[in-house]
C-alpha cells in the first residue's frame, strides 16, 4: 500500500487551508490516516489513485473537494525542441519511452525526498515493481541532447548512481544493490536498455539504475524525465503524474519529441456521460447542472451537454477513469458519502439455505446430541499428518500448493480424521474423555465436497463406541448402510468397519491403530468415525468445481 508523507506547512501552503481541515476531510475523498505526527501526517491512498501520491497531488484534489479551486487544472506545455530516439532493437525488451523537460525546479532536501517518494510509489502502483514502468529523473544541464534510448551490449560500462567507479551493466546486476533487486527484469535479454546523450554519455540503465553523471541535487534547476516500460498507457500516466505534480509546485513543463511524437501533452481526455445513468446508479435525483458542480469539485472539467448529458474532461493524471461509472463514483464522493440517505429496496425475496448447509446442520445436531464438541481445523495441512501418521498411502487426488509458505501447510486436506487426531494432541493436557467432531470441506483433485469425522479419546474408548456413534449418525441422516470389515490401516485389524452405501465405501469407523496413536503422541485408545457426506440423500450434485 502507498503511504504518503504530507508535511503540514508545505501542504497548507499548496492547499491554502489549515492542517486540521485537511486531516478531517481527506478520508472522505478515499484515504486512511495512518499516523498524525507533529510536523506531518502519513496517509494511505488507494492503488487506483497514484495521482494522490504526492503533497502536490493531494493539495490539488483537496482544493477542489473543499471548494477552494474547482474544475480542470490546466497545464501549459511548450516544446523543448529536444528529441529522443528509440532503438527498434528494444521491441522485445522494453519498447516504450516517454520523456519531458521540467524547468525552473526549486529543490531543497525535502522536495528531493518527496520527489523520490513519489517515484517509488509510482514504481509500485503503476510500474508493478518497475517491470511495467520505471522512472528516471536527471539533471538536464549535465548532458547534451538529443538523447537516444538504445538496446546496448551487456558489457557497456558507466558509473552508476552512488558509486565512484565504472561498472559494466552485467556487474551492476550482481554487485549494485539496485542491480540485485531488479536483475530479474532484464537478465534474460541479450541486450540491455540504456539511455545516452549526444556525446554517448550514459544517463540511465532502465529499469535498474541511473548514472552518477545526472544525479539530481539541490543545485539542479532543470530536469529531464524518462519513463520507460512495457505498457505505453502506464508509461504515459507515470509521466503525466510526475509532470503535473512538479507543475503544481511551480515548475514549467516542456515536451520532448519521442520518435516524432510530442510528449507529454498533459491534455485531458473527453467523455460524455448520461445524467440519468449517474442518478440511477447513485439513487439521487440530479440535474446536469448539479452533476457538473459535483464533478468540478473533483477537478474534472465539466459542462452540460443539453439537459441529459454532461461533457467531462478527465485530467491527464487520472488513470483510474476507465468507465463512466468511475466518473459517477467521483460525483458520489463530491456529494459526500455521509449525505446519502440509506434505504432498503422494496422487492421481496425468500431466503433459502444451501442443501450442504442443511446436511451439515443435521450432522452438528446429531453429534452434539451424542455429547461431541465441535472443532474447526484448518483446511491446509501436510502429507505427514494426512497420510504418514495415519499409516495411509498418499491419495493421488491430493492438491499440492505450488508455493507453500511453511512445511506445516503444503496440501489441501482430503480427509478430516487426521486433523482431529492432531487436535487431540493439542489438547493432550485437557480432561478426558474428549469427544470431538468436525464437519467441513475437503478437496479431491479440484472438487470440493463435505465430510464429517469424529473422535473419542478416553481409557475405555473402543470399537463398540465407534460403531454405536456411526450407527446413530447414519440412521439420523437416513443413510441406508451396511458394514463390512475394513482394511483401513489407520484402524486396528478386527476392530474396524467400512460404511457401505449402494455398494460404495462412504465411511469408516473403529479403533485407531496404536501406531497411529503413537504417531500423534496420544496415550489412550481412540474410537473414530469418518463419513463422506455425498452419500447422504439430497446432497447436491455436482459438487463444486472450478
Amino acid at each position, binding site marked *: 500500500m502507498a503511504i504518503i508523507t504530507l508535511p503540514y506547512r508545505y501542504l497548507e501552503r499548496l492547499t491554502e487551508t489549515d492542517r486540521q481541515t485537511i486531516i478531517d476531510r481527506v478520508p472522505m475523498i478515499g484515504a486512511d490516516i495512518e499516523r498524525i505526527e507533529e510536523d506531518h501526517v502519513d496517509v494511505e491512498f488507494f492503488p487506483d489513485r497514484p495521482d494522490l501520491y504526492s503533497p502536490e497531488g493531494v493539495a490539488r484534489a483537496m482544493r477542489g473537494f473543499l471548494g477552494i479551486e474547482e474544475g480542470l487544472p490546466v497545464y501549459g506545455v511548450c516544446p523543448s525542441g529536444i528529441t529522443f530516439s528509440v532503438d527498434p532493437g528494444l521491441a522485445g525488451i522494453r519498447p516504450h519511452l516517454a520523456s519531458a523537460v521540467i524547468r525552473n525546479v526549486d529543490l531543497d532536501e525535502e522536495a528531493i525526498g518527496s520527489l523520490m517518494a513519489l517515484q517509488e510509489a509510482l514504481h509500485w502502483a503503476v510500474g508493478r515493481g518497475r517491470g511495467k514502468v520505471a522512472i528516471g529523473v536527471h539533471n538536464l544541464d549535465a548532458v547534451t541532447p538529443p538523447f537516444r534510448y538504445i538496446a546496448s551490449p551487456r558489457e557497456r560500462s558507466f558509473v552508476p548512481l552512488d558509486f565512484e567507479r565504472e561498472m559494466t551493466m552485467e556487474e551492476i546486476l550482481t554487485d549494485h544493490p539496485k542491480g540485485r533487486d531488479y536483475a530479474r527484469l532484464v537478465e534474460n535479454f541479450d541486450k540491455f536498455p540504456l539511455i545516452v546523450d549526444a556525446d554517448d554519455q550514459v544517463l540511465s540503465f532502465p529499469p535498474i539504475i541511473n548514472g552518477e553523471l545526472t544525479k539530481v541535487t539541490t543545485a539542479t534547476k532543470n530536469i529531464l524525465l524518462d519513463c520507460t516500460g512495457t505498457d505505453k498507457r502506464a508509461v504515459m500516466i507515470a509521466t503525466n503524474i510526475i509532470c503535473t505534480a512538479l507543475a503544481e509546485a511551480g515548475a514549467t513543463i516542456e515536451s520532448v519529441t519521442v520518435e516524432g511524437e510530442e510528449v507529454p501533452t498533459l491534455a485531458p481526455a473527453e467523455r460524455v456521460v448520461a445524467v440519468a445513468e449517474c442518478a440511477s446508479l447513485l439513487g439521487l435525483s440530479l440535474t446536469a447542472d448539479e452533476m457538473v458542480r459535483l464533478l468540478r469539485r473533483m477537478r474534472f472539467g465539466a459542462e452540460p451537454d443539453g439537459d441529459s448529458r454532461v461533457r467531462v474532461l478527465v485530467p491527464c493524471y487520472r488513470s483510474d477513469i476507465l468507465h463512466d461509472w468511475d466518473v459517477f463514483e467521483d460525483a458520489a464522493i463530491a456529494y459526500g458519502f455521509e449525505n446519502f440517505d440509506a434505504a432498503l429496496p422494496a422487492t421481496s*425475496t425468500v431466503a433459502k*439455505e444451501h442443501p450442504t448447509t442443511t446436511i451439515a446442520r443435521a450432522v452438528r445436531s446429531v453429534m452434539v446430541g451424542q*455429547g461431541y464438541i465441535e472443532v474447526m481445523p484448518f483446511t491446509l495441512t501436510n502429507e505427514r499428518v494426512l497420510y504418514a501418521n495415519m499409516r495411509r498411502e498418499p491419495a493421488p487426488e491430493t492438491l499440492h500448493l505450488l508455493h507453500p509458505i*511453511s512445511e506445516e501447510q503444503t496440501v489441501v486436506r482430503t480427509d478430516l480424521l487426521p486433523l482431529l487426531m492432531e487436535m487431540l494432541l*493439542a489438547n493432550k493436557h*485437557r480432561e478426558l474423555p474428549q469427544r470431538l467432531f468436525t464437519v467441513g470441506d475437503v478437496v479431491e483433485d*479440484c472438487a470440493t465436497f463435505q465430510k464429517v469425522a469424529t473422535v473419542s479419546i478416553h481409557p475405555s474408548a473402543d470399537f463398540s463406541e465407534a460403531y454405536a456413534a456411526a450407527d446413530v449418525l447414519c440412521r439420523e441422516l437416513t443413510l441406508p448402510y451396511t458394514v463390512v470389515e475394513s482394511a483401513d490401516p489407520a484402524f486396528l485389524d478386527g476392530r474396524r468397519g467400512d460404511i457401505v452405501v449402494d455398494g460404495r465405501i462412504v465411511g469408516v469407523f473403529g479403533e485407531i491403530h496404536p501406531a497411529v496413536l503413537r504417531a500423534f503422541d496420544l496415550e489412550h485408545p481412540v474410537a473414530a468415525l469418518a463419513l463422506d457426506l455425498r452419500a447422504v440423500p439430497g446432497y447436491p450434485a455436482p*459438487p463444486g468445481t472450478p
Partner: protein
Amino acid sequence: MELTLNEKRLLVVLEEAGSADVVVLAEKMDTRREAVVQYANLAGEKGLVDVEKHVSRRYIPTEEGRAYMGKGLPERQVLESFEGEIPMRDLQSHPLAKIAIGWMRKKGWIAIRDGIVQKTDTTAPGPDEAAFARLTESGAIAAGEGVSDLVKRGLAVEEERVTHTVSITPRGRELVAGGFDLREEVGTLTREQILSGEWKDLPLRRYDVTKLPRRTYPGKTHPYQRLLDEMRRILFDMGFEEMAGGIVQSSFWNFDALFQPQDHPAREMQDTFFLGERWPLPAGYERVRDMHEHGGETSSTGWGGTWSAAKAEQCVLRTHTTSLSIQHLAGHLKPPVKAFCIGRVYRREAIDPTHLAEFEQLEGIVMDEGVNFRHLLGFLKEFYGNMGFEKVRFRPGYFPYTEPSVEPEVYVDGLGWVELGGAGIFRQEVTAPFGIEHPVLAWGLGISRVAMLQLGLRDLRQLYKSDVEWVRETPTYSGRR
C-alpha cells in the same frame, strides 16, 4: 436437627454404654472403625457426643529384630559360643562375629590381647537386653529403659496408635430419649416406591445444596460456528439465498471475471496460492477477454494490452468468495437475486496471531432492477445493525471490481470506529460479459475480524486450533440477538 441414619444409630448404641472405644462401637454397629469416627465427628459437631482422641506409641521389632527373637542379641549369642578365651581368628568365623565383636568390646564384655579374645567378668545383661526379652515375649513393648537403644540399632521401630473414645453428652441423651426413626434413608426412588405410594412414608435423603455438583460438559457446536450461524440467520431474515462452491477456482473466475488485471499484484505467487492444475475456460470467455483488452461494448477503455487465456486457466485456492458470486449471477440472470456465501478463503500469508493463510469470508450480493448506491448503504446498515453494530458510517473505498466502492466502519465501544469489510456496486466490466443487466450490490467482510471483536480473541489461530477447554467454557448463549 438433621441427623444421618448413622449418627442416630451411634447415639442409640451410646445411650446404653455411655462411653465406648471406637473398636467396640464398630463391632456393635457392624461397620468399620473409620466410619464410626466419621459418624462420631459429625455428631460431635452438633454437641451430641464428645470424641476423645488418644495417641499411644509402642515399639515393634524390625525384620532384623525378629531374626534375633528367642536367640538373644548377636553379642550375647557370640559371647555364649565360647568359654573363657578364644583366638580372634576362630571367633571371626562365627556368622554374627561382624556385628557382635564391636558390641562386646563396647559393652566391656571382652578384652583382646595378642589375637586372643578373653571374657571379662562384667557380662551381665543390660537394659537393652531386658527390653529385647520383653519384646520377644509380647511382640510389642511400650517405651521404657533400653527401648531407645533397640530403635537406634534398627531392631525396633516406633508405631503410633490412635484410639478414640466416644461418650454421649446430656444433649445427646435428651435427643435419643425423644425417639428416632431408624429406617434406612432412601436415595433414588424406585419404580415400585413411586407406583405404590410408599414414597410418602419413606425417609428421603436430603441433599446439601451448598455442595457443587460434579462438573460435566455438554456436547456443543464451536463458538465460531455459532457466530457464523448467527450471521447466516441474519441474512436469511433479510431474504437472502445461500450459495456454496469450490475452494479451488480457476484464475478466470477468481480474477479475470472480476476484471482484475492480469498483472495485478494479487495475482502474483507472493499473495495467492497457485496450484499446478488448470481448468478450461467457460464458453463465452472471449467477452471477458475483450473487456480486459478494450472494454468490450461498454464505455470502458479496458486495461489495454493482451489478455492471456493460459493465465486465466491456472487454478488457485479462492482468494475471495466473490468468485462464487459472479458464477451465481452468471447462472441467475433474472432479477431479483439476493444471495450470500460464508466460506473459507485463502491468502498466502505467514501465520501469526492476526494473520492466517485461510479464514472465513462472508459475502452478499443483490441484483435487481433499479437498485442503487443508497440501497447498498441500506443493506450494510441493516446487516451490521443486526450484528449488533448500531453505529455505521461510510467512507470511499477501492476494490478492483466495484465502482463506486465503500469502506464501512462500525463503532465499537473501547475501540472507536473500526473498518469492517468492503462493499460496492459491481463494475459494468464485471457484469456486462455475462449479460447481467441490472446493478449488482455487493459487500463482503472477513469474519475473523468480527470473531475477534465478539469472542474477545487475541489470537485468531485459537479459532482453528481449538483448546477444548475454551470450547467447553464458552457459553452457548452469547447474549447477542
